[in-house]
């Protein structure tokens, strides 16, 4: 109950009229940017990061929480009304959501998505309140070898479970690790991979990397393949739900929350898997099974809740260990560090009031999202019709402004362009983005822990597996790599491992189906 008291203090600190205004601005800006086609939550957060420069940490967090939830909700609005999800976590929402919209039930689809997101986000944030301090208490006691093992484990999970071919995942990861090397070596101060540029000495700014890869990469990619005929946009009225819709939605919301949160809390590769599992589960449990595939409200309610609960869950490893597991939380980490806050085991004790303010802000942002966005939905839908040259020019404009404003160096816009081209290449050759971002962020942290562990042992490599937790994690990481290889060999029909994109995707799908039964048992318990 102590945690709730601290949360109440956090709410007290966050709930002033001025802060509520910042939260409202954040929600509106986040939704505005998130609704724009082609912009997912990670990109929305990265693009809007400069807006919070110069604010006090508390106000910046509150605005940030609004941007975060607004961006997430904006993304699902786009996928319901356009049937072309901006990011992988909205794929499942788009399936049933767009069918509902086509049947004239766009208002109900948006309503169940919004209310489901609110419920899942609120429950998820409350679960973070309970789990993050517990995990942080444990995390404080573990040594550098285990910490190193945790990072290795997180990287293996993110790279392997994300779908697509593993080779591409590992290429992305190591590309990210290479970018993470750029800059001054922490121990000796020697420049690495800086090409003699002093601007590169203090490491790459993760915001520039993220905005380059997400925003500029996307803009360049779209420019190369711009759709010549306009998309069909479904008009929408005021979101509302009938009694029947409520009856059919509330269980999927709760089940989606139960599935989504653990996937976010353990580093298991973002919201793609839990939204998929939630969709499968709702299809199995639905009373009107034949409605699935033709716009079943359960198929929107469940995955949307799972998506948001998983997003909330990512705050557990982020706050307690400083480990981001999704692209969005990676950008959040970058934002937190720009306020001099270094997430990690110490954070919960050293800067407890800031953490509780942040968590309280998440609750406030979530609530405001519901209040503001249900009435504003018809307005947001109009944004989908924005002329494409203006939309992508605007993205280029704000991406460059964000990169330039931080330290007013033209060189930073150049770096942005370089990472934009990397992002373009990754889209063309189907390299997943998340492992790269994780590599850039966790690479330096990993090296620090590695050198810490070996400094204690005097260079003896066996120090790396000197702790039991580390051994367990290495075994699990090895299993994650080996088991799919073995099962693939046992079932050669399920796809040749060099078929690339489509093959990798279908393998992931069948793995996930196998996991559904376990997941269902968990849910029933």
């Amino acid at each position, binding site marked *: 109950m102590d945690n709730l008291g601290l949360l109440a203090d956090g709410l007290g600190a966050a709930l002033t009229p001025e802060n509520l205004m910042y939260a409202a601005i954040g929600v509106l800006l986040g939704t505005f940017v998130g609704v724009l086609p082609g912009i997912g939550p990670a990109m929305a957060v990265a693009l809007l990061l400069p807006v919070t420069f110069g604010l006090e940490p508390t106000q910046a967090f509150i605005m940030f929480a609004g941007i975060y939830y607004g961006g997430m909700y904006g993304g699902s609005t786009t996928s319901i009304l356009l049937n072309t999800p901006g990011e992988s976590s909205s794929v499942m929402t788009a399936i049933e959501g767009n069918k509902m919209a086509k049947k004239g039930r766009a208002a109900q689809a948006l309503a169940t998505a919004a209310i489901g997101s609110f419920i899942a986000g609120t429950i998820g944030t409350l679960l973070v309140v309970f789990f993050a301090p517990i995990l942080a208490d444990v995390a404080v006691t573990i040594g550098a070898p285990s910490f190193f093992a945790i990072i290795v484990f997180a990287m293996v999970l993110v790279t392997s479970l994300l779908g697509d071919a593993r080779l591409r995942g590992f290429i992305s990861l190591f590309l990210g*690790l290479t970018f993470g090397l750029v800059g001054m070596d922490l121990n000796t101060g020697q420049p690495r991979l800086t090409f003699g540029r002093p601007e590169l000495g203090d490491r790459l700014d993760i915001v520039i990397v993220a905005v380059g890869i997400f925003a500029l990469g996307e803009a360049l990619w779209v420019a190369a393949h711009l759709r010549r005929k306009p998309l069909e946009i479904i008009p929408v009225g005021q979101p509302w739900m009938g009694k029947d819709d409520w009856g059919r939605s509330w269980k999927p919301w709760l089940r989606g929350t139960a599935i989504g949160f653990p996937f976010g809390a353990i580093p298991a590769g973002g919201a793609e898997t839990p939204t998929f599992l939630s969709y499968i589960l709702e299809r199995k449990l639905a009373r009107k099974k034949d409605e699935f595939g033709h716009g079943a409200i359960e198929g929107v309610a469940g995955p949307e809740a799972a998506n948001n609960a998983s997003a909330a869950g990512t705050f557990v490893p982020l706050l307690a260990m400083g480990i981001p597991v999704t692209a969005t939380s990676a950008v959040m980490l970058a934002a937190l560090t720009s306020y001099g806050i270094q997430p990690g085991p110490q954070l919960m004790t050293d800067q407890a009031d800031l953490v509780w303010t942040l968590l309280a802000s998440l609750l406030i942002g979530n609530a405001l999202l519901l209040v503001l966005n249900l009435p504003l939905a018809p307005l947001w839908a109009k944004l989908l019709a924005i002329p494409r040259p203006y939309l992508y020019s605007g993205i280029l404009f704000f991406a460059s402004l964000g990169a330039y404003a931080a330290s007013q160096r033209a060189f930073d816009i150049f770096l942005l362009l370089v990472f934009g081209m990397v992002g373009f290449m990754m889209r063309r050759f189907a390299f997943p983005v998340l492992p790269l971002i994780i590599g850039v962020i966790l690479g330096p942290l990993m090296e620090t822990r590695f050198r810490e562990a070996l400094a204690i042992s005097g260079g003896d490599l066996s120090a790396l597996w000197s702790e039991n937790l580390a051994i367990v994690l290495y075994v699990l990481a090895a299993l994650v790599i080996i088991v799919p290889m073995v099962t693939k060999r046992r079932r050669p029909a399920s796809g040749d491992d060099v078929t690339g994109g489509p093959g990798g995707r279908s393998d992931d799908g069948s793995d996930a189906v196998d996991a559904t039964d376990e997941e269902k048992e968990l849910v029933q318990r």
Partner: protein
Amino acid sequence: MSTQTVDPAAPAATSQDRAQYGVAALLFAIGAYTLYDATTLTVGFADPVGPKMFPYAIGGAMVVLSLLLVVATARGDKPEAEGGEDVDLTHPADWLTVAKLIGVLLITIATVNWLSWAISGAFLFAGAAWSLGSRTLIRDILVGIVMSVGSWYGFYVGLGIPLTPGILDGIL
């Protein structure tokens, strides 16, 4: 279940995505340069690991992965390019538009400190809109000026961050 829903890659297996060899070459170069760069570092005292080990491991892995990509490409691996709301993959890539955008960005980079964000930003917006097919030049420039001057004042007044005024020093 989804195996059936995805098109079998069998007919495509005979052709190769040759551009992917280029990617492999680039990755190989990155890995090799990382390894070379690591050799220029010196290991300090009382530092059992030193700054070299991670670059060696990462660069080495990159080289191995680039070779694996060559093997996979030779065996018919084909990437599935990313779709999206505004992406139409049925047409070949429009390189001219991409080149124009990169050119606009490079000009912006070259001029921003001299001409100030207010001018270069407006150029960036209008130039990018023109590259992407907008043909209402006057309107694009006006929108660009409103956005860049607006963001300059937004940063200055709202956030207290003065962006370099450049040649407009004293005017803004």
